[in-house]
């Protein structure tokens, strides 16, 4: 029998029992829509994570973070000087697998134009030139901080796009370079303006002349940067607050290194660990936090979300499949006579088998299509209630997967009724009332 004929017979059968078919499709509709919604949701979380990771830098970055020393070493924990510029210096000199080292201190203080215009409180950060690479910066105009700036402790600064726009609204970055700003009432020369960092979506919205509606901006911190040389920060701004510190003993706020080559990632970690063991005098008051660790943590939470959503969808699909099987069984016991007649005029058992199977797949496919429609609505609802950085993303492979599962559910649940129908004895079936 031509499959098209079987499809047409199936469609007629479905059309003849619309309400019953709708009921039997319900499980499939729920399963498919929840599967697509789950995939979109976890995809959105992944996307949010990816953007976040992008903003935080690549896998090459390793943060050296403070840690409570283990109890065994607690008694001589005060022997360790903590994270200082000496750590940075030692890593820079001795760790051959590390390409960049960025120690950082900061100060929350007032920033204004010369003469005190447009004042604002900002986090001013004292950094080394390596921060340009580690922070993944681009300059729109001027230059970044140089080793000479560090050596001389010069009063120069590089500002982010948001800061520049706030201080000098409407002035292009090229004209801002060379101007003077007041940081904590001390004049600093602006030597560079950073590019505007934004996501593709925001860039599109800006080009189209619309305001981006998203409240969360992963690049906000970078765009609001006010960067000065580390030494300048220490001597000019911080020494008043911490008079007992020297440049070498002052505790760093962050210390980030960049691994030169990911192939030697673990060797690089070993090197850093070894060097810091010495500078910290054997006290384990630090930890190496890799982006891989972050990534794994986020990945595993996404996986957990996907698994639980997938499980719910799977249960719905199984229930939906059972629903279809139920209806198909009811349908064939109602159609015993019809099957008998078809057999009498020359239908082979496999014609009956395919007819029932195709009908079952048609029901599930129809349920799948309705499920896709339902999922579109569901995703719209999720968009309004989910955190902005994790907006659900609908992908074609999610739809394909869901439809695939729907068809599989239809096939599996149609097998038994189809086998049962094709095993009907024509003589009994013709006598059946």
């Amino acid at each position: 029998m031509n499959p098209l004929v079987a499809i047409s017979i199936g469609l007629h059968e479905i059309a003849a029992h619309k309400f019953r078919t709708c009921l039997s499709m319900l499980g499939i509709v729920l399963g498919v829509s929840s599967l697509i919604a789950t995939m979109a949701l976890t995809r959105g979380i992944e996307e949010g994570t990816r953007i976040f990771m992008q903003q935080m830098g690549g896998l090459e970055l390793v943060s050296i973070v403070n840690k409570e020393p283990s109890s065994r070493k607690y008694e001589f924990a005060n022997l360790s000087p903590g994270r200082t510029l000496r750590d940075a210096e030692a890593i820079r000199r001795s760790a051959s697998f590390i390409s960049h080292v960025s120690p950082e201190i900061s100060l929350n203080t007032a920033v204004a134009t010369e003469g005190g215009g447009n004042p604002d409180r900002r986090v001013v950060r004292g950094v080394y030139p390596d921060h340009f690479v580690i922070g993944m910066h681009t300059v729109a105009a001027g230059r970044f901080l140089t080793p000479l700036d560090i050596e001389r402790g010069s009063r120069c600064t590089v500002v982010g796009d948001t800061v520049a726009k706030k201080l000098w609204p409407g002035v292009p970055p090229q004209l801002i370079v060379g101007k003077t700003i007041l940081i904590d009432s001390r004049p600093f020369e602006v030597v560079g303006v950073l590019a505007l960092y934004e996501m593709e979506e925001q860039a599109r919205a800006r080009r189209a002349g619309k305001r981006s509606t998203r409240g969360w901006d992963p690049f906000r911190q970078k765009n609001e940067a006010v960067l000065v040389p580390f030494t300048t920060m220490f001597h000019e701004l911080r020494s008043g607050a911490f008079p007992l510190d020297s440049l070498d003993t002052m505790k760093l706020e962050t210390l980030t290194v960049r691994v030169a080559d990911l192939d030697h990632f673990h060797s690089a970690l070993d090197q850093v660990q070894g060097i810091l063991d010495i500078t910290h005098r054997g006290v384990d008051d630090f930890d190496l936090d890799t982006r891989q660790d972050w990534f794994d943590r986020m990945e595993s939470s996404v996986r957990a979300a996907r698994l639980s959503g997938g499980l719910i969808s799977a249960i719905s699909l199984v229930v939906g499949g059972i629903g279809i099987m139920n209806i198909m069984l009811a349908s064939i016991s109602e159609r015993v006579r019809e099957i008998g007649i078809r057999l009498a005029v020359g239908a082979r058992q496999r014609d009956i088998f395919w007819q029932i199977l195709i009908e079952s797949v048609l029901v599930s496919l129809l349920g799948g299509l309705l499920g896709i429609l339902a999922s579109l609505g569901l995703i719209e609802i999720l968009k309004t209630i989910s955190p902005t950085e994790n907006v659900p993303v609908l992908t074609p492979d999610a739809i394909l997967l869901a439809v695939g599962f729907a068809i599989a559910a239809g096939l599996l649940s149609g097998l038994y009724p189809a086998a049962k129908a094709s095993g009907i004895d024509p003589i009994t079936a013709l006598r059946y009332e």
Partner: protein
Amino acid sequence: MSLIHLEGLSKVYRVGDQEIRALDEVNLRIEEGEFIAIIGSSGSGKSTLMHLLGCLDTPTAGRMEICGKDLAKASNDELASVRNREIGFVFQAFNLLPKLDVVSNIALPLIYAGVPSRERLARARKVAADVGLGDRLANRPPQLSGGQCQRVAIARALVNNPRILFGDEPTGNLDSATGKMILEMFDTLHASGKTIVLVTHDPAIAARSRRVIEIRDGRITREYAP
């Protein structure tokens, strides 16, 4: 070479420990173009014989050749193919599909013969016109009278141009006037060269045939020309 050749044909049903011999060593030859009636009371085995001849069932023992094919041990698919191409059925209860219109009912065997859709409809329309239903094509069986239903069934039996036409009490559900009309159609078909096998319990109907076979307790007890 006979069209139908039965030799020592038996059919045994097992119900629990009991054996029921519905057919017991039946021998029968039917030639092409014959008009034959199988007569017997209910429970005589005539329906079983009819089901075997109609390839709806397989025998327990014996030889069964139909249209030159040995079908005693045939597979279900082979039997389906013979039912589709060589045999047309007309049942007492019409056995039409109530959801399909007249044309689709008539075209039903052609679906399983693999005939393309356009040709199916053309052939079904032609046969419908031949049985006098040219104006009822779009009706569905519940909207037709008994006589019209039986004509649809005859058209369906004829649409694939089979060599043998089986009638299983074809007038049983009809009043005598309509019944007569249907029997006249069988006469006409016989005249046009079809082999016709009528199964009935009514000697008056059997009398229209050229050869009557009487069955009792699973055996052919008498054979005569009316």
